[in-house]
């Protein structure tokens, strides 16, 4: 028996990505013209940009391509593919650096991604793009700064932007929204800062838009909580509702995934501190029958803090599987798959949303060269074959799994 804790998942393979196994929050499947199934992964930090893995046989993943970042003061972290086009986010370590924005690639030959265009989001107050959503081939929804945006507080440097990429060589911004008060010149007062040790910014993290409601954007707005926007007029997004539960909770609302048919929202926080300093970071189940008044009704149960807080690095919620509206992505409005850093990957059945029940977990043993000595499961993707892909933030690379629950 290894130190891996696994329940109702079956591990198929583990690939450490040849020494560059630190993966961020970008995981996307492309079916190449020759039929190969390519998983594109964005790296968490420099020096690598992205890695492509052939997962046609999930028991034997093969490295296909890898790109370096042009600068060490940047990270990609997030990417998405639609057909043979891939969008990759670029965020710099500090405001004012370059390149900050996103790059579009032609990946029709996975071994040889070719740049189509770079969309510049740099500026004296901008770090560029932290995360992007690209699902319909027409619009990129992202959390980004820009040259013309001066925040009221430097930590609020990113906001929601919609970019039209119907012509991939000439992306055009078509809309933007920020929390009122976070831009200099706003009539509203700036939001009240969280305590200094928990001030992570009033800015969006994930910006999800689904075909079931093309007129809605679901934003995890970090210290601002959950935000639902009406984007029926993309040029003028309007806030439908906001659920702000901080304080008393530490901030960093990360992802919002709607279960449309069931009137539920699944909301994750991101744990950003070690040894439980920002505990509890949770996955929330929210009653969205009245979208103007989202009501939290439960959270996904977790093992006690004491069991994980001393294992090293972070323990708490982070990414969710987002039911990506693409043909090669699995859809479920019952199962929540969430990543919890050293708490691994955990699965919940939300059939009774008042009492979500844990139905599986995968906590791999710490990778051999883990800097913290701990596993840090960072993100998860599930393809339409119901193969689960999950990644380590620092060195562990890619794990492929089957769901048995």
């Amino acid at each position, binding site marked *: 028996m290894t130190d891996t804790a696994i329940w109702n998942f079956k591990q198929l393979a583990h690939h450490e990505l040849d020494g560059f196994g630190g993966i961020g929050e970008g995981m996307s499947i492309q079916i190449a013209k020759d039929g190969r199934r390519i998983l594109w992964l964005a790296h968490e930090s420099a020096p690598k940009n992205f890695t492509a893995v052939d997962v046609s046989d999930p028991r034997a993943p093969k490295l296909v391509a890898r790109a370096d970042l042009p600068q060490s003061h940047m990270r990609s972290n997030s990417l998405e593919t639609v057909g043979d086009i891939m969008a990759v986010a670029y965020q710099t370590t500090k405001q004012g650096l370059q390149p900050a924005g996103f790059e579009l690639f032609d990946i029709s030959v996975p071994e040889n991604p070719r740049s189509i265009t770079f969309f510049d989001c740099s500026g004296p107050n901008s770090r560029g793009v932290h995360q992007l959503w690209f699902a319909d081939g027409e619009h990129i929804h992202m959390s980004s700064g820009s040259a013309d945006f001066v925040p009221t507080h430097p930590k609020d440097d990113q906001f929601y932007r919609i970019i039209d990429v119907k012509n991939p060589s000439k992306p055009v911004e078509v809309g933007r929204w920020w929390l009122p008060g976070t831009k200099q010149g706003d009539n509203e007062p700036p939001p009240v800062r969280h305590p200094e040790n928990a001030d992570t910014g009033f800015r969006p993290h994930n910006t999800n838009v689904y075909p079931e409601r093309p007129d809605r954007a679901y934003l995890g707005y970090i210290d601002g909580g959950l935000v639902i926007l009406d984007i029926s007029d993309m040029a003028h997004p309007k806030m439908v509702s906001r659920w702000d539960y901080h304080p008393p909770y530490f901030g960093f609302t990360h992802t919002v995934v709607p279960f449309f048919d069931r009137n539920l929202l699944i909301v994750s926080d991101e744990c950003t501190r070690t040894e439980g300093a920002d505990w509890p970071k949770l996955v929330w189940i929210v009653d969205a029958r009245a979208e103007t008044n989202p009501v939290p009704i439960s959270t996904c149960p977790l093992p006690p803090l004491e069991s994980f807080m001393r294992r090293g690095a972070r323990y708490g919620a982070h990414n969710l599987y987002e039911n990506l509206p693409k043909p090669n992505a699995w859809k479920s409005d019952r*199962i929540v798959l969430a990543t919890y850093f050293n708490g691994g990957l955990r699965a919940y*059945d939300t059939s009774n949303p008042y009492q979500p029940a844990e139905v599986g977990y995968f906590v791999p043993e710490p990778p051999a060269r883990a800097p913290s000595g701990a596993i840090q499961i960072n993100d998860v993707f599930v393809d339409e074959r119901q193969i689960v892909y999950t990644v380590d933030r620092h060195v562990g690379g890619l794990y492929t799994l089957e769901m*048995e*629950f």
Partner: protein
Amino acid sequence: MSAGSTRSKWSSETRPEALFGGRDASLFGRRQKRPRGARLPVVAVTGFLGSGKTTLIRALLDKPEGGGTAVVVNEYGEIGIDHALLRSSSDATVLLGNGCLCCNVRSDLQETLRALFADRARGAVPSFVRVIIETSGLADPGPILQTFATDRALGREFHLQALVCVVDAVAGETNFERMPEARKQVALADRIVVTKSDLADAGAAERLVKRIATLNLAPVGIAGHGEIEPSFLLDEPVAVRRNFDLGEADHTHGLESFSLIFDEPLTWPSFEQAMAVLMSLRGPDLLRVKGFVALAECRGPVVVHFVQHVAHPPVELEDWPDDDRRSRLVFVTRGLARKPVAQLFASVAAFAAGGA
């Protein structure tokens, strides 16, 4: 399901599914890939003292397939050979070789399993993937079956995957004649393992297998030197596919086992009402009822399991396991014959359809 109930206890009207079910809701929660869903599988091993239960479990634990097993020894205060062989050095749960966990039950089975589940969740014991319960020799399997029936008990966390009965070829036949508990253990089992055939007279094992077939048509495996293929102990039993009626055989001493197979889908209200009548009028004699039900309301088969007056929560599967899409139920009863049960189902169905 209470006596005379007219409400569908598990239907959506009384569950959060009514608020948050969506268009694809099942009557019975999330559709599952397998009968146990996400629950931890439990294999309960019954059999008389000296029949070879401990040897059989030990042999399984030594194989790779037996890894990650928590063993619970249900002693009921007995002192016996079993006790000496599996007993750990302290009262606490301890690791056996092969990453297995062994704990001696001194108190209540439920309490022990609940504590095991909680310890596992918080990482206090290894992340075991199944539980094997070794029952005491004289144990009536009925209460163990009931333990896993309801949410209030352990039905949410654990699923009784298989009830395995161990019978030894030397003493088995004599026990059958003298001990009603021995017959009941065999009659209720999902699988039967015959041990010690190498120690018995020539032909004894064969005679025993024939005798077992008068009580139960479940698969019978012959253990060689106390060992048997791990899958025989661990896999989910396959649903019955044919009509049978053992009630007419000799030597059953009032234990009856038969199947009911329905060619056409049933409706949940009619199935539920037929079972409610049976349970309210003859609950104590309804030793075990299990199988797949094809319901007009469901696309997958519904796994049902009743023990006397207790109903396990039904589970709808995502899909049928094979081409046979008929409802198929196996009954084990005390003195309740096939014919009146079949008539009851037919009558209720006719009423439900507006006829009769």
